[in-house]
C-alpha cells in the first residue's frame, strides 16, 4: 500500500512523539526534582518538547505575536509541525529577587489567570519567564504593571539588569548593588530606551557588590560594576590570632593561598602584613578569615566594559574602564559608548565586539571626559606618566621649602 507524503510525515511524527513521550517518562524518574513533572502540572504544550526529544532537535520556530504598543519583553514560538504556539513574557524581578509571600502570591495568581501556570523563576539573565496564554497576553501586560513590575529583556535594547544579593543579605557587600540596579533602570536615557530603541544588539548591565562577582558580571555584561576597595584589606590581628588558636583557620594557609603573594607573616611581631600594591583584591584572605580580615575601608566600584558570550568575535571577558567612587558616575559614559556603538556596528555586533574592533584603549580614551576627572585608576590605553610639571609660584615655593627641609636633614645648605 502506497501512503501519501503527508501521511508518511504524520506517521513519522507519531513515532518521534512516542519516543519522546517515553523519554519524558524517563526524565520523571531519578532522585532530582523533574522539570517534566513540574511542566505536566501546567498547560504548557508538552508534546512539542516530547517531539523535540524524540527527534533530537528543537521543534520550535520563531513565531509572532502582537501586543498593542509594546515592542519588547515577550517571545513567540510556533512548533515545526504548525500545530502549537507558545508565548512567554520576560518579567523584571525586584532587585535581589526577594518576595514576600504576599507579593509572590499576586504573581502566581497572575500566572494562573493569564498564563499556563508555568514559571522559570530565574532565567540566565536573572529575570523571570512566565509562559502565557496567547489570547490574554495583551490584557496581561496591564495587569502585570498593576502588580508592580513589567515585561522587558528582549530585543536590541537594554536587557534586564542583574545584581547580586548584596547588602540585603551579604556581609561582603561594598556598595549597594541592588540600589544600583534600581538606579540604572530608572536612569532617564536608559528608561527611555528600555523598550523602544533599536540598537545594533542587546545591552546588559550587571552589578556585583564585591569581587566574588556573584552576579557573573565580568563575562556576561556589556557594563559590569564590581565592588572593591583601595589599598590592603583591614586586619584585626588579635581576632586573627584568636581564630587560629581556636582552630578556625591556619594563618600560613592565608599566606600561601594569597594569589598575589601579598601577605607575609612577621614572625617577630606575630602578625601578618599585607602589601597594598600587591593585593589583587581576590577576597581570598577575607572570605577565609572574615571578620578578622575585611575589605579596606576606602570602598570603590570597578567599572568594566565589553564582556559578552558570543557576539561577532566570540566570548570575551570585560576589560577595565575606571575605578569609581560611586556607582552613579557611569551614566554618561554608558550612553556615550552606546552612541559610538550605534555609529560603528552592524547588526549582531555587541559592544565588546565594537570595542575590540575599534581598539578598546582608543575608544575609552576618547570618551574619558564622560567619567569623573578625579579617577583613581584609569588603566585604559596606557598609563600617562608625565615627568615634567607646570607649577605656579605657590607650588614652586612649597616644593622649594620641602627640598630645603630634606636638604637640611641631609647635611645642611
Amino acid at each position, binding site marked *: 500500500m502506497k501512503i501519501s507524503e503527508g501521511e508518511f510525515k504524520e506517521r513519522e511524527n507519531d513515532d518521534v512523539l512516542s519516543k519522546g513521550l517515553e*523519554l519524558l517518562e524517563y526524565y520523571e524518574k531519578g532522585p532530582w526534582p523533574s522539570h517534566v513533572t513540574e511542566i505536566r502540572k501546567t498547560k504548557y504544550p508538552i508534546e512539542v518538547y516530547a517531539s523535540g526529544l524524540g527527534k533530537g532537535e*528543537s521543534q520550535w520556530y520563531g513565531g509572532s505575536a502582537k501586543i498593542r504598543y509594546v515592542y519588547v519583553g515577550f517571545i513567540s514560538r510556533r512548533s515545526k509541525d504548525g500545530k502549537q504556539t507558545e508565548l512567554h513574557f520576560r518579567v523584571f524581578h525586584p532587585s535581589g529577587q526577594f518576595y514576600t509571600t*504576599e507579593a509572590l502570591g499576586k504573581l502566581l495568581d497572575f500566572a494562573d489567570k493569564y498564563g499556563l*501556570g508555568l514559571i522559570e523563576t530565574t532565567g540566565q539573565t536573572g529575570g523571570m519567564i512566565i509562559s502565557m496564554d496567547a489570547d490574554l497576553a495583551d490584557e496581561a501586560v496591564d495587569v502585570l504593571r498593576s502588580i*508592580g513590575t513589567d515585561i522587558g529583556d528582549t530585543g536590541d535594547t537594554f536587557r534586564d539588569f542583574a545584581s547580586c544579593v548584596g*547588602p540585603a543579605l551579604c556581609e561582603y557587600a561594598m556598595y549597594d548593588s541592588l540600589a544600583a540596579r534600581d538606579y540604572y533602570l530608572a536612569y532617564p536615557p536608559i528608561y527611555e530606551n528600555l523598550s523602544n530603541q533599536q540598537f545594533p544588539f542587546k545591552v546588559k548591565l550587571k552589578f556585583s557588590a564585591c569581587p566574588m562577582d556573584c552576579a557573573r558580571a565580568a563575562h556576561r555584561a556589556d557594563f559590569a560594576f564590581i565592588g572593591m576597595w583601595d589599598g590592603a584589606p583591614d586586619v584585626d590581628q588579635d581576632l586573627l590570632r584568636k581564630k587560629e588558636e581556636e582552630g578556625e583557620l591556619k594563618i600560613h594557609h592565608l599566606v600561601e593561598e594569597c594569589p598575589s603573594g601579598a601577605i607575609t607573616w612577621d614572625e617577630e611581631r606575630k602578625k601578618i602584613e599585607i602589601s597594598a600594591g600587591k593585593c*589583587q583584591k581576590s577576597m581570598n584572605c577575607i572570605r577565609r578569615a572574615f571578620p578578622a580580615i575585611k575589605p579596606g575601608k576606602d570602598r570603590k566600584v570597578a567599572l568594566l566594559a565589553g564582556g559578552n558570550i558570543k557576539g561577532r568575535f566570540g566570548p570575551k571577558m570585560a576589560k577595565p574602564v575606571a575605578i569609581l567612587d560611586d556607582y552613579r558616575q557611569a551614566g554618561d559614559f554608558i550612553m556615550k559608548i552606546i552612541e559610538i556603538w550605534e555609529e560603528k556596528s552592524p547588526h549582531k555586533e555587541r559592544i565588546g565586539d565594537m570595542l575590540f574592533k575599534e581598539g578598546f584603549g582608543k575608544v575609552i580614551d576618547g570618551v574619558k571626559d564622560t567619567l569623573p576627572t578625579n579617577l583613581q585608576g584609569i588603566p585604559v590605553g596606557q598609563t600617562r606618566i608625565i615627568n615634567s610639571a607646570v607649577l605656579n609660584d605657590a607650588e614652586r615655593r612649597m616644593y622649594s621649602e620641602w627640598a630645603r627641609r630634606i636638604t637640611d636633614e641631609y647635611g645642611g645648605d
Partner: protein
Amino acid sequence: MITPASRFKKKLPVPYTDSLPDEIKGNVGKWKDRKFHDHGIIEHISESGEHVFSVKVGATPNVRFSTDTLRKFSGIADQYGIHALRFTRSGNVELLANSLENSLKIKQAVEDLGYFVGGVGNTLWSIGSCTAYLTCTTAVVDSPSLTKVLYDNFKSYFTGEDPLPAKLRINVGGCPTSCGGLVADIVLIGHYGDAPSYDPEKIKMCLPAKADSLDKAVPELVMVCPVNAIKAYKKEDNSVGIDIIREKCIGCGRCKDVCDHITFDPHKAGLSILVGGKTSNTGFGPALARVLVPWIPVRTPEYREAVAVVSKLIDIWKSNGKPGERMSDYVHRIGLSELQKMLDIPVTRWNKPTSPPSGFGVRQFLTE
C-alpha cells in the same frame, strides 16, 4: 481603554527595599558575620543582633516551576519562615527564616515535597541550564534533560553528603550561544560537530536577489561568519551563490541564526566539555573555560558519555585539588595539557590548549 500613552508608560519593578521582609529591611548593609549549617543553610548575623537564615533549595532543571509548587514553597515560608523567599542568581530558591530550628523545619518540609536543600559552602551550588527544546529555536542538544541526568547523578554533591574541595558550578548550554556563559568550572555545550549545508535554491531567500549588489554591501549571511568561511559570488544569471569552506568553518551556527535555510546534519551533533572557567576573583581570578573535550556523542536518555566525563573530572579534582581550591583553579595550576594527559584524550586543533585567558576582573586595575 488602552491608549499608546498609557501603554508607553513603562512600569519599573518596585524599589528593592519595598520587596524586603521586615526582618531584613533594618539590617541592610549591617551583616557582620555568617555561619553555614548543614551544607544548605546560611545564618546571617547582623550588627543589630538579629539573625536571618536562608535555606537554599535546589531547583528543577531550567528552574521551571509550576505555580502549584511555588505555592507550596510559599506555604512553607508562611508556616516556618518569615513569609518571604528569594530566587538566587544561580537558579536556586532561598526560603528565609528567623531561627535554625525553623530552618530545619523548612528543610524537612521541602524534602517532603521531593526537593533538596544544599548548595552552601564546598558543594555543587547548582547546574545551570538554558531552556533549549522547551522554548528555544536554536537549541542543538536539550540542556534541561541533560541537566536532570547530571543532577540525578551528582545530587550528593549538592546536599553535601559527598564533600568537595570547594564550590563547584556546572553550566549546560543547548547550543554554542551558551546563554549560561563560559564562567563555570565545567561547561557542557551542545553543538553541530559539523559544517552546515544548504539547498542552493532555498538559500537565495537569505541572499540579495541580484549579484550587482555584492559590490555595494556584504550580505548579512556572509558577514556574520566570524571566520570568513562563507563566500558569496556572482552566478551566470546574475543571482548570488555561496560557498561554505569546510576547512575554515568552526561550526558556530551564526549563519543559521540569521538564515533558517542553513541546515546541519543532526547525526553529527555532539557535546563539547569545557573546564577552568569562573567569574570570582579568588585564586587565579576570573577566566573563560577552555575546551577540554571537543565532542562526545549525545545519547538519550542517559547521556552516559557526559556523565562519565563529568564524574571523572570531579574524581580527579577530589583526589588532587587542595582543600578550598576551585576546580578551575586546580585546572589552571596543573595546566590543561596535564589534565588532558590524565584523561588520555586525543588532542586535535579543537582542544589544543592555547594560552589560558587570565588576568581579568578587578585585578586589571590594581590601584594602590
